[in-house]
């Protein structure tokens, strides 16, 4: 059995990642970490009740991580893959950005990844194998106006990914990141028709990505064929650069 923990598992991207692993192999056991909203994750866990379970986890809380990892190890004895997918954005021009919008976004997007990686490392070191995949963002690389907090957090995730990859490579743990561009999830639901047209025109493929296309990259980084890939940043963005 391969044990996989996906955070932010209630959202569109988290759901696609979880389904991708569930469809990949009946040997995969999925822990769906959710906070506040859990309806979609609960439905998925009910549909795959023999190899899928929901876990309450506020990624920004260190103690939540400690409890969650303890629970996982009690129930499934190991953690093979961690997908740090939970994220949040509160966009606004920096001049108008209040402290809560800054610290809240940094806390969920960057602190959460730090706590998550640190929490699973002892188990992965003990197993001498592990895969960590951090979901960053194209914003980490392009740093658009109006996303100083989100871009800084995601750029931090990219740097954390590469630094940690070097630290644990010799133990058999790989650490990689994916940077999704415009993906059809709830994050884009608030765009007006004009905003969608404008955004689409910036994508060489002239369309937004599907969550499943990001999930495929995540699943690849977790598979045995990706054993020599670590510290890599994979853009899934339809060709924006």
């Amino acid at each position, binding site marked *: 059995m391969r044990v996989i923990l996906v955070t932010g598992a209630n959202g569109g991207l988290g759901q696609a990642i979880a389904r991708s692993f569930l469809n990949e192999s009946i040997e995969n056991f999925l822990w769906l970490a959710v906070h506040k909203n859990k309806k979609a994750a609960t439905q998925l866990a009910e549909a795959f009740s023999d190899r899928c379970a929901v876990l309450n986890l506020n990624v920004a809380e260190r103690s939540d991580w400690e409890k969650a990892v303890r629970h996982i190890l009690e129930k499934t004895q190991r953690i093979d893959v961690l997908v740090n997918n939970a994220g949040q954005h509160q966009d606004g021009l920096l001049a108008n950005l209040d402290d809560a919008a800054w610290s809240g976004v940094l806390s969920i997007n960057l602190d959460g990844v730090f706590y998550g990686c640190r929490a699973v*490392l*002892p188990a992965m*070191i*003990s197993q001498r194998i592990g895969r960590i995949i951090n979901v960053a963002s194209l914003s980490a690389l392009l740093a658009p106006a109006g996303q100083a907090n989100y871009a800084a957090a995601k750029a931090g995730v990219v740097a954390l990914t590469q630094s940690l990859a070097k*630290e*644990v490579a*010799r*133990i058999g743990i790989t650490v990689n990141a994916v940077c999704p561009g415009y993906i059809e999830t709830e994050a884009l639901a608030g765009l007006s028709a004009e905003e969608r047209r404008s955004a689409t025109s910036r994508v060489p493929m002239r369309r937004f990505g599907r969550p499943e296309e990001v999930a495929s990259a995540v699943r690849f980084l977790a598979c045995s064929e990706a054993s020599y890939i670590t510290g890599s940043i994979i853009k899934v963005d339809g060709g924006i650069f």
Partner: protein
Amino acid sequence: MEDANALKERIKKMMVDNLMLQMSAEEIGDDLPLFGPGSLGLDSVDALQLVVALDKNFGLKIPDPGAAKEVLQTVNTIVAAVQKKLGTT
């Protein structure tokens, strides 16, 4: 109950196996510093692996970097910490 010498050899073997050291357990001196100049040459990642291995093999929990610095000085300091945990001193 495991005597001190047997425990020492077991800990040295654990270090060789877990840290993939290019030497035999017998070549590790009991009082050889593990970190720093003139030492066995371990680094912080090795320290992390040792902390995990000591917990897994002996139930010895090293809760913070300060405690790790105390325990992970030499093989002898590790042996002392494990003996204390096992109640064999």
